[in-house]
């Protein structure tokens, strides 16, 4: 195997870890409340713009931008839950799809209106230079994004499986009435789930903002990536999202390298359709 190929695969894995991070937010609310957030990719886009604003206004790097983006998006998540999701959850499916889809448009075009359609980017050396080891050249910004995303995704999994908060959330997902009888407030738990899910997108957005192009419509592509990841990993499963995210990162990089950059999105979309058609329960999920 040539060095270039290894380089491409490592790059794919690092990006894939970020995909895994924001997709685990989508899979969390989907698995817990059976609602699909069509605005999920646009949450990531908001995270990118928060990081960008932090940099241009205050000159702050990812050390300031990433926590701030997480906090801002977590707040957005809670507000969205109480203002919109709580009510449309009980409504017909048309209302659920329209509600989150309308939210996506609202966010995307508010940013478009404010910042314009231009491609923005951060300075290439905002995190540090490029490391070279064993013949591989890795940009510090990508390395930081990949490692942090991997750790946070694993942390999220531990939070959901090993803490009492995680058990409470699981209880609400299983049976709201029974959870309520045990003294757990479904409303609070679901709001926390939205805060975690949106916070994860904020962090992911701030991390990839350091090397990705920043544009209002980026959320559309990233949203589809999140759907692909979740459908591949099985809905509601954070470990599934992690494996699927890494896999998609690698497939995307490889097809970009082997077939051509314009076709990498097509490959991911076609893969998504094939999975929906032949294995809608995902790699690890069961229906």
């Amino acid at each position, binding site marked *: 195997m040539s060095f270039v190929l290894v380089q491409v695969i490592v790059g794919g894995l690092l990006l894939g870890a970020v995909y895994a991070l924001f997709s685990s937010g989508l899979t969390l609310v989907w698995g817990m409340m059976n609602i699909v957030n069509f605005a999920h990719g646009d949450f990531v886009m908001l995270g990118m713009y928060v990081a960008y604003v932090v940099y241009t206004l205050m000159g702050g790097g990812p050390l300031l931008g990433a926590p701030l983006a997480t906090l801002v998006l977590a707040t957005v998540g809670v507000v969205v839950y109480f203002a919109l999701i709580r009510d*449309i959850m009980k409504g017909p499916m048309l209302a659920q799809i329209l509600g989150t889809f309308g939210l996506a*448009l609202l966010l995307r075009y508010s940013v*478009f209106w404010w910042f314009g359609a231009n491609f923005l980017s951060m300075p290439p050396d905002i995190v540090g230079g490029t490391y070279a080891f064993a013949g591989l050249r890795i940009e510090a910004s990508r390395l930081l994004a990949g490692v942090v995303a991997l750790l946070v995704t694993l942390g999220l999994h531990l939070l959901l499986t090993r803490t009492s908060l995680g058990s409470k959330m699981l209880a609400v997902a299983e049976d709201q009435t029974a959870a309520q009888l045990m003294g757990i407030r479904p409303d609070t738990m679901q709001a926390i789930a939205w805060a975690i899910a949106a916070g994860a997108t904020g962090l992911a957005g701030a991390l990839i903002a350091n090397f990705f192009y920043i544009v209002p419509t980026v959320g559309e592509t990233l949203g589809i990536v999140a759907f692909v990841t979740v459908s591949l990993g099985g809905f509601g499963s954070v470990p599934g999202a992690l494996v699927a995210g890494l896999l998609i990162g690698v497939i995307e990089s490889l097809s970009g390298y082997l077939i051509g950059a314009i076709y990498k999105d097509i490959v991911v979309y076609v893969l998504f359709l094939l999975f929906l058609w032949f294995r*809608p329960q995902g790699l690890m999920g069961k229906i």
Partner: protein
Amino acid sequence: MRRWIWLSVVAAFAIAYPLLLSSPFQQRLGALVLLYAIAASAWNIVGGYAGQVSVGHVVFFGCGAYAAMGSYAKFGLSPLFGIPSGIVIAVGLAAIVGVPTLRLSGHYFSMATIAVAETMRLIVTNTDWLGAAVGLSGPTVPRNIFDLSFLSSLPYYYLFLLVLVITLFITWWMTNSRMGFYLRAIKDSERAARSLGAPASRTKLYAYMLSAALTSVSGALYAMMFGFVDPESGLGILISVKILIMAALGGAGLLFGPLVGAAILVPLEEISNSWLGGKGAGLTFVVYGAIIVLIARFQPGGLLSLFTQRRKSKSDTGAGHAP
């Protein structure tokens, strides 16, 4: 009886509109309202009546638009040939997409339709034969009347009106046929409908294919009026969004819902574009987004459902039976 009076008033207004308000801007506005009403009514068959929210309907719109412009640009035929050929392509595509995805629950269907539309847009953008990113153009100078290339919007207005009437008639006929009853049963509870012997998958697929065919006609008409099609105007996801919002605003699953939605939103967009210029493009979709969120939150049945709700509650009390 009241219903027929209302219908004839609306019909008379629709026929007289371009003669009463005869400036080019107003005639063009009228034609656009009718065009989007056709597309939204077509969406309504699968999104409203069958309850399957397709977010990628633009792919069928694109089939018609590309078929119409392709007939001219590639084969030197009248763009009118794009109507039958677009229908064939759209129905075939609907079958390919629909057979596997309509089995899945609704969210998956919505996502799959987005992915199909985006895949098609990317493929067409990279296909030189279909004009790639530049797109295809129609006749610049019409050779004869069958090129359907007119300077004035008036001929388009009446053409679109005719197609809209046909579309609404097909929808009305469908809702009163066996298929309409199946669809209503499936929408209420698919499991119950299946257990009573309604062929759920097949009925949804037929609705999807019918909707695809009519959407493709609207795409062909759009391309004829504007004289060109490119990947953004023919296959961009925002076209689907507009169509969907119009139907949902007026009332998804109601015969005249999409027409009402189009009559409100198309003038809104045209006016905001002409007032705000290029900057309006973003703002228009901010308003669109806000409108959908508000509908979903407060009136998921759409504006027209306000009337039907009132009528229903009146007739309920009139009949005097307890629920």
